Each structure stands twice: as structure tokens, then as C-alpha cells.
């Protein structure tokens, strides 16, 4: 795996999870842009674990574009866990994520979320390219991904130093790319998300 000039290149052999993500992204890209965030970022970068969902952030679409995407997904054997009615799904996006999966197979699923916070916006606008042999994916900037994962750990759990997948995801990415990360940007988000102590653990 190679990380330079804001781009990661990997010749990894695809898992069924990777194939699921690529298939979904192939359809989504006909209608708009996206960024993949959270657990799958660590997994596609080699973390030794699976997941039941893949988190995806998308800019708000107009209704007709969303309806076309929804119907394209349905005609490609996907179903939406929340509703089969596109109008309802579109309204839900203002409140929460909706999930898509291959018919009859709820695991894995795509958690499709509309960009709604500054953190989301930053992640999308600064997304990085992950070039696989079969497909280029866009993933969250690692300098945000690491502190964000640390922020998901409850302080109580952290004090007890118990096993936590979010800490391990952050650790994996940090160990893999620590020489290549933009430290200024990384520590900006460490400060912003108030995870200085957790970051010190990660650097041990």
C-alpha cells in the first residue's frame, strides 16, 4: 500500500464486502459524489475485522435525482431497510440515515447519510482517493478519521482501557500511516474533538 500526495494505492485482493461497496458506488456515481467514512475506511486499509454496515456521506440531492437513484438501486436488486417509497426515504434523510442492502441480505448494508454537519462537510471536501485495481473509492481524510474514531469511545470505557473497535480502528490507521500524516491537521482535530488523552495512548 502506498500513500503519497493525498492518494492511497492498494493492490489488495477484494473481499465480498469490498465488492458489495464497489457495486453500490458504481450505481451511486451515476447521480452524485460521496465520501466513505468510519469503520470501512480502516477495513479497506487492511484492518482484520468485518462490519455489518458501511457509512456513506452524500451531499443533499434534489428530489428527482434521488428518486432516480432509488429506483436504479431497486432495479439492481437492492432494497431500502427503512421504506420502499422514495418520497418517504427522501424525507427521512433530513432526520437520519437510511440503509440499503441486497435483497434478502441485510448484512452488509450501506448506511446512506446526507451531509449535515461541519465535520461531514470537511470530510467530503477533503476526501482522499483510494485507488484499488478494480475501482477508485473516495474515503475520509485520515487526519480527521483518527480523532473522530477516538471521539466515539466513551471516557469511562477508555479509563478502564477495555477493548474497543473504534480505538483499534484509529490505532490501525495511525500505525499504518503515521509517517505520512499531516500532523498539523491531525492535532487540529485532536484538539477540536477533545481527544488529546486518547491520542497520547495511541502514540504509545
Amino acid at each position: 500500500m502506498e500513500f503519497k500526495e493525498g492518494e492511497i494505492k492498494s493492490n489488495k485482493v477484494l473481499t465480498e464486502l469490498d465488492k458489495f461497496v464497489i457495486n453500490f458506488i458504481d450505481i451511486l456515481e451515476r447521480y452524485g459524489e460521496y465520501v466513505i467514512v468510519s469503520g470501512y475506511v480502516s477495513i479497506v486499509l487492511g484492518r482484520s475485522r468485518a462490519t455489518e454496515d458501511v457509512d456513506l456521506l452524500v451531499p443533499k440531492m434534489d428530489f428527482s435525482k434521488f428518486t432516480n437513484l432509488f429506483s436504479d438501486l431497486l432495479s439492481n436488486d437492492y432494497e431500502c431497510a427503512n421504506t420502499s417509497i422514495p418520497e418517504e426515504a427522501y424525507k427521512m434523510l433530513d432526520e437520519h440515515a437510511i440503509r440499503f442492502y441486497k435483497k434478502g441480505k441485510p448484512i452488509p448494508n450501506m448506511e446512506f447519510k446526507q451531509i449535515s454537519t461541519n465535520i461531514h462537510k470537511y470530510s467530503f471536501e477533503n476526501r482522499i482517493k483510494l485507488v484499488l485495481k478494480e475501482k477508485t473509492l473516495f474515503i475520509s481524510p485520515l487526519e480527521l478519521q483518527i480523532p473522530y474514531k477516538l471521539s466515539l469511545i466513551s471516557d469511562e470505557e477508555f479509563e478502564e482501557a477495555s477493548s474497543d473497535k473504534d480505538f483499534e480502528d484509529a490505532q490501525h490507521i495511525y500505525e499504518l500511516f503515521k509517517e505520512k500524516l499531516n500532523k498539523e491537521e491531525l492535532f487540529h482535530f485532536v484538539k477540536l474533538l477533545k481527544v488529546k488523552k486518547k491520542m497520547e495512548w495511541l502514540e504509545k
Partner: protein
Amino acid sequence: MKAEDVKVDFEELKKEKQRNFRERIWFIKYWVNYIKTHTDEEWSKQQRFLIDSQLKNAGNID
């Protein structure tokens, strides 16, 4: 031993969790080193085995 005879030493349990945490972190570093010292094809075949078998167990690979 009956279930009602089991006593829990919470201090010991906490130490066990901490040991487990340290061991997990040790393995993360070990695995990252494996990724760095092997080709993408090599490490990812092992990752594929793990992930695909979990999805297969969930009944989601034909």
C-alpha cells in the same frame, strides 16, 4: 461448581480487561507490521478469508 457459588473479583476482572486491551493493541501493531512487510496480495488474502467467512456465516455469500 454451582452458579451461585461463583464469586467475582472485580479488581481481577479489571486487570483482565486491561491485559486483554494491551494484547489487542499489540496485535494491531503486529498486523500493521505484517501489512508493511508483505505484498498487498499476501495480506489481503488473509483479510479476505476472515471477512468472507464472517459474511458466509451470516448467510450472505452464495
